[in-house]
């Protein structure tokens, strides 16, 4: 649905973002040179408060850059008049529902404002695009509903349909999945990825849902607290130490070997787990949650767990053995023990 043959749809040139406070400027990130291509789904990641929204607002032209340029299809975004801009870039924000009794169709039709006349009357073409947008997010049945009465997930779909109705080359989404439950988040991410690929949209989505981003994004932009923007393929960034640097905190650590974050990176006590398969995986997760590390070394383990046939757990501690038929019983037992007397490893 885009007219552009150019690959690079959005690019920044020495862009510095931040806020002007009186005469002083608070710079969030500077000298950013990144690009967003048509047909790719990029996730913008970064810890809370690092300035993801500021970057999105600056790219969308809602906020002036401190210095540098945002270029859309080769021209400086700041020089493009508002109506033209609205035909190039659309946004989806966390902002809540519109006020008043507005049905979803009316809300999506507002996306046609950059094309409609003085009083916003809709042409046949406008109506076709609106209906196409509803179909594209699978929300045709929501058209006649009041927006105020939709669930968060439904409202976010309508919001994306509204942005699609704008028929832009670039779509910027600021934490659209923030208030959704997991199935809704997965659904939304796959809708967005398909749109980027099929419609050759350049799509940028900010999120702090790393897990989901790893599964769906074509590329990552990672905004660091130091104000740098790292870009690359998700796996490359996950393997490099960048994630660890950006997201690590006192009680959370990025574990590149399993591709997720780990709580309590420095457990005091360790246990040894023998076994494999699903049961072993979740047993280790349970131990980790309860504050135990896992070790292969018998000497440093305060107890060991042997898993038989993925359905029977045998714990050995101080020469005594205990049998459990379910993981519930196992966890209950671990929690009931007094571990304070155990020698630290």
């Amino acid at each position, binding site marked *: 649905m885009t007219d552009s043959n150019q690959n690079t749809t959005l690019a920044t040139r020495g862009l510095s973002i931040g806020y002007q406070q009186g005469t002083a400027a608070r710079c969030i990130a500077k000298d950013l040179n990144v690009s967003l291509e048509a047909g790719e789904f990029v996730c913008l990641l970064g810890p809370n408060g690092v300035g993801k929204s500021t970057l999105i*607002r600056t790219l*969308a*032209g*809602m906020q002036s850059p401190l210095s540098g340029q945002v270029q859309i299809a080769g021209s400086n975004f700041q020089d493009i008049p*508002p*109506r*033209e*801009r*609205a*035909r190039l*870039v*659309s*946004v989806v*924000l966390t*902002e809540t*529902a*519109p*006020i*008043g*009794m*507005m049905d979803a169709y*009316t*809300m999506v039709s*507002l*996306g046609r*404002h*950059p094309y*409609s006349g*003085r*009083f*916003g009357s809709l042409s046949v073409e406008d109506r076709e695009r609106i209906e196409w947008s509803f179909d594209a997010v699978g929300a045709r049945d929501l058209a006649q509903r*009041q*927006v*105020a*009465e939709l669930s968060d997930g439904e409202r976010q779909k309508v919001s994306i349909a509204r942005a699609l109705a*704008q028929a832009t080359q670039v779509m910027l989404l600021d934490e659209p999945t923030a208030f959704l439950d997991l199935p809704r988040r997965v659904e939304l991410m796959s809708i967005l990825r398909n749109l980027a690929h099929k419609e050759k949209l350049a799509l940028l989505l900010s999120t702090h849902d790393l897990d989901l981003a790893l599964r769906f994004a074509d590329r990552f932009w990672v905004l660091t607290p130091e104000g740098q923007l790292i870009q690359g393929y998700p796996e490359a960034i996950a393997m490099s130490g960048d994630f660890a640097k950006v997201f690590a905190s006192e009680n959370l650590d990025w574990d590149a070997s399993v591709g997720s974050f780990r709580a309590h990176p420095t457990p005091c006590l360790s246990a040894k787990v023998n076994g494999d398969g699903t049961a072993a995986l979740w047993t280790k997760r349970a131990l980790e949650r309860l504050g135990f590390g896992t070790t292969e070394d018998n000497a440093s383990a305060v107890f060991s767990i042997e898993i038989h046939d993925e359905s029977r757990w045998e714990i050995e501690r101080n020469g005594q053995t205990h049998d459990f038929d379910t993981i519930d019983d196992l966890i209950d037992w671990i929690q009931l023990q007094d571990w304070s007397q155990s020698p630290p490893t």
Partner: protein
Amino acid sequence: MLAALSASIGSVTLPLDAVLKTLTGSTDVDPVMRQIILDFRLPRILTALLAGAALGTAGLLMQTVFRNPLADPFVLGVNSGASLGVALVLLALAPVGISLTEGLGASGQLLIIFASSAGAAATLFVVLLLSRRVDVMSVLIIGLMISYTVGAIVSILMFFSMAERLQSFINWSFGDYGNVSWSHLRLFAPAILSGIIVSILFIKPLDALLLGESYAQSIGTNTKRCRLLVLLAASILAGTVTGFCGPIGFLGIAAPHLSRYLCRTSSHRVLIPASILIGALLSLGSDFVSRGPGLDVVLPLNAITALVGAPVIIAALVKQRNMKRLFG
């Protein structure tokens, strides 16, 4: 129909057929009656209709711009500004020996109109000047604060005033459509019509603003310019009404809510005409009731607008069960 009824009620009750005959151009009516109808009742009715339309529209504009169901046409302080202007004339100038308003003669009436319009304009100017750099919520609060400040000055003026002066100020604050003559209407009507025309020109950006300023901007709306011009139009509408008729409360907040309730939409293409119509009807109805059919007295218009309007809004809300379904 309501207009004809309204024309027959007043300090002298006129027979309805005389009213209808006069209005249809027949000369077969008592010339005194004819004069009362044409020179006093008709301007009053037109004023009531125009004022109601103006307040309904202004209220709708304010509620949309501020995204607040409690916003009314006077949130930027035009009302308190106008009352300061009038208080200065009625209360402060009096001790100096200037008493142009004795008996509320024609020139005194004009002075009141001038004073309240000037007061409203001055307040509006200050609020808009202070509001240039802040977000829309702050504009609302600045408007409120200026209102309180100006209201406080009026209170101090009242404290130092003589009882009879106070009485004429209080009478002004009751609101009255009866003080607008044909010659006043020549100024009153164009001011209100131009305000309404401006708001019709802003139908599209107003719809966009329903999504919030960020979204409005992203679909190509020049939000700063739109906000300024719409606030200006709304305040001119409200200020003009206050200038000529005194502070008329409630209509401005009631008419847009009733329009939303009756039309079940948020589109300004529907809501602006609906607010104009409902505002005008509520206004005329309130005036009719305040003239007290069958009574000898004229009740304060301001009290009647609220007495008539508030129950209607409450009923609408109770029926809708919650504000969200009506306003979002």
